[in-house]
């Protein structure tokens, strides 16, 4: 075992063992037993307890036990790109009930760098966040942010935007950085292709992502305390997706992400790839749909069987004054709210809505950054509450009804429903009135 840089290691190994026992007590089927044995053999520091499954859709409610705490799924994970969630303190985030948030390997690897974060006892220590962290591989930012990047079998080559130096992000390097960050869930480096690209490049990327998964697994220095998730690729091609699923589910990884979507593809293609993936992913492992965070997408994709989601949208849009509400969004900076003395959402219990009116926030946007913080807090509260309500309805066996009520509130009339959502929901037996 590596000499640990985590002071709390002892306690969480213990926690994990307890969790596995708990999982064992819960599983009756031989299949579950098999997977449990498998899980024990690699001692992955994760366990998933399925609390309830929707009898109509593919939705499920689970307790995901991770090294730092339990996570109730379905879960939305706010994104704290650079080791901070845009103007919000970790205590505020905890107060909102957030159990897991994201950090970005690309950004953190650049600044302040893995060595420094390792010295600070990992990203948890550096930002003083006591709950779970998920880090991405850094590959996505490299392709989306850095113009001069080139993908080879070795990895992603790119020029540092800070000093112009050429850097290679290989699967090994990505995992090494993520090991330094000490996240509870790490993501494999995948070969990301824009979801609008078609042709042989998509197939190449899919096969390469499988090879890179194996390299990532081999490179993980902390398999006993950091979970490594595989990322299903294959673009919008069902055969490629299926091939990727077949290969990757043969690997004994603690969880799976559905990648390569949410990149501007048609929603009709998007949901079909999601549902294809969940059809073939193992029941006993968590499924993470990357980059999804719009309320409607969340509700539909939960129905399609996804457990975890992340997106910068709720926090980014907040800084532009856009507050999320059950009927869509409210642009606080718009003139129409200058004299509107109601809270953003009269039914919302978040600290912002309990104290401040739309008119006050409207005026505050002209004077201070705290206005952004107020909306950010509200939007995180909105996302987390939405997922809590979704979970509750699954547990209580009324998720289809929840979906219908949710859609009615979100759209002014039936003909406003996006057709992809109607189709996707119909595919899991939910018809909207």
């Amino acid at each position, binding site marked *: 075992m590596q000499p640990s840089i985590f002071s709390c290691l002892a306690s969480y190994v213990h926690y994990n063992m307890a969790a596995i026992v708990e999982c064992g007590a819960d599983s009756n089927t031989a299949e579950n037993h098999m997977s449990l044995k498998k899980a024990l053999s690699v001692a992955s520091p994760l366990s998933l307890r399925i609390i309830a499954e929707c009898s109509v859709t593919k939705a499920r409610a689970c307790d995901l036990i991770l090294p730092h705490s339990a996570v109730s799924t379905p879960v939305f994970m706010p994104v704290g790109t*650079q*080791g*901070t*969630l*845009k*103007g*919000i*303190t*970790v*205590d*505020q985030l905890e*107060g909102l009930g957030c159990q897991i948030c994201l950090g970005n390997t690309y*950004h953190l690897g650049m*600044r*302040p760098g893995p060595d*420094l974060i390792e*010295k*600070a006892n990992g990203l948890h220590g*550096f*930002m*003083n966040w006591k709950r779970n962290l998920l880090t991405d591989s850094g590959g996505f930012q490299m392709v989306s942010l850095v113009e001069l990047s080139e993908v080879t079998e070795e990895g992603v080559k790119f020029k540092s935007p800070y000093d112009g130096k050429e850097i290679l992000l290989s699967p090994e390097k990505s995992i090494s950085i993520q090991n330094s960050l000490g996240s509870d869930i790490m993501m494999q480096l995948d070969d990301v292709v824009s979801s609008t690209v078609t042709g042989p490049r998509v197939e190449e990327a899919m096969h390469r992502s499988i090879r890179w998964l194996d390299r990532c697994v081999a490179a993980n220095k902390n398999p006993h305390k950091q979970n490594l998730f595989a990322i299903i690729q294959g673009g919008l091609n069902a055969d490629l997706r299926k091939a990727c699923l077949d290969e990757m589910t043969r690997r004994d990884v603690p969880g799976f992400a559905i990648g390569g979507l949410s990149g501007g593809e048609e929603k009709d293609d998007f949901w079909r790839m999601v549902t294809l993936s969940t059809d073939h992913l193992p029941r006993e492992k968590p499924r993470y749909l990357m980059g999804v965070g719009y309320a409607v997408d969340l509700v539909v994709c939960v129905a399609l069987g996804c457990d975890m989601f992340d997106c910068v949208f709720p926090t980014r849009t907040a800084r532009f004054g856009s507050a999320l509400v059950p009927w869509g969004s409210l642009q606080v900076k718009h003139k129409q709210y*200058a*004299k509107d*003395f109601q809270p953003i959402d009269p039914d919302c219990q978040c*600290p*912002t809505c309990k*104290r*401040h*009116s739309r*008119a*006050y926030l409207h*005026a*505050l946007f*002209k*004077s*201070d*950054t*705290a*206005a*952004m*913080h*107020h909306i950010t*807090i509200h939007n995180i509260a909105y996302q987390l509450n939405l997922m809590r309500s979704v979970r509750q309805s699954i547990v209580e066996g009324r998720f289809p009804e929840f979906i219908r009520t949710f859609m009615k509130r979100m759209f002014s009339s039936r003909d406003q429903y996006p057709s992809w959502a109607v189709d996707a929901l119909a595919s899991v037996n939910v018809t909207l009135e």
Partner: protein
Amino acid sequence: MAGSRIKLELSRVVQGKSRLGVLKGLGRTGQHSLEVPGCLLYTHFGTVPHLTQDTLHTLSNLSSVTQVTLAEHQEVLEEFKDGFKKFAGLHDTVLYCSLHDPAAPCPPGYTTNKTVSVWGSGGRIELTVAKFMALQKTVRPDWYQSMADGETWQSNTSRKRVRKSVDRTLAHLDECLLVHQNSQELQGVEVFGVVEGGDILEERVRSARETAKRPVAGFCLDGLQTGSMDQALRTQLIAAMTKELPEDKPRLLQGVGRPDEVLACAEAGVDLFESFFPFQVTERGCALCFNFDISPDPERAGRAPPAGVVNTGETQPNGDVTLDDQTQMTSFEINLKDKRYQDDFRPLVGGCGCYCCQNHQRAYLHHLLVTNELLAGVLLMIHNTAHYNGFFSALREAIANDKLDLLKRRVLGERGGQTERKE
């Protein structure tokens, strides 16, 4: 207004000048109080910069008086009808409405006999007494500063201009009081008269003497802000003014926030300060770290910011203290953007009990600053406000226990020659 509810109870006056006491009877029902020397809570439109209620209330010993400047939002407040406190969600505070934002520049050249100009996010707003008073009726503060011509702070202002500003300010005050006394809405609201006079001693005395004749609850000393004159002159003018002012009414000094200047001005008889200084320090990415520990307990002394802070070169020496640009770093702070803090895993100030120091390290703040993250402003504002409040507690303790000289030595950090230069 003759029966002003604000009451200053002085428990100690050192050498006829520095005063220790409690300002009582604040707020509509008189339930609030504020210890003096003390500072107000600086806000942008009722919000302490960068902070939400959660982050603000990690701070203990918050000032009970919130300062706000709000000329630009009259329309919405008129519509709202219930006053600014309720509008801003400020439930348990005393509201003081000042004419200008002490941390925002106020370009001169826009004052006339009948009007003054204030600057909001949308530009210049010209106020007559009528407009100014209409604003107070919609804001409904607990106390406000009367309208004033405060354009005479520049050192080259002519005697004639200074005299005119004193006359105008007194005329404004009389007009304000007249409207005030006839306004149902402003019953129970207090007015602070503004003392002007530029850098001319006789005008300062005249302004103070005349203002003191009016039924005001307290006095704003205007035109003495940092950058307008050196501390020796400021001290002299303050001493001359306070001699003319009644003992039992508070004196609020505008535009002065640096710890060294606060000490000198409190010594000269000032009771209240605005707390824009921690905000300015925050905006330049710095953390207050000056030492103010005068506790005799050696165990506690160890928890104070290390006296060596200055000697190790962590803070930057400033040149001529009094003529500094307000946006420039002072020797009371450390610049966390500096590379040396990159791997410094200590709290901003050892032993500091604020949320930032209890939870985060210099290296993290450095990272937040170099990556332009919004949390940097939040955490720095918490720390700087806590540190500044701590300094004011120490100042009161020093006056109570005859330790002003010790406090001065601590705060000035035995910086070679600087103390002498200022005295």
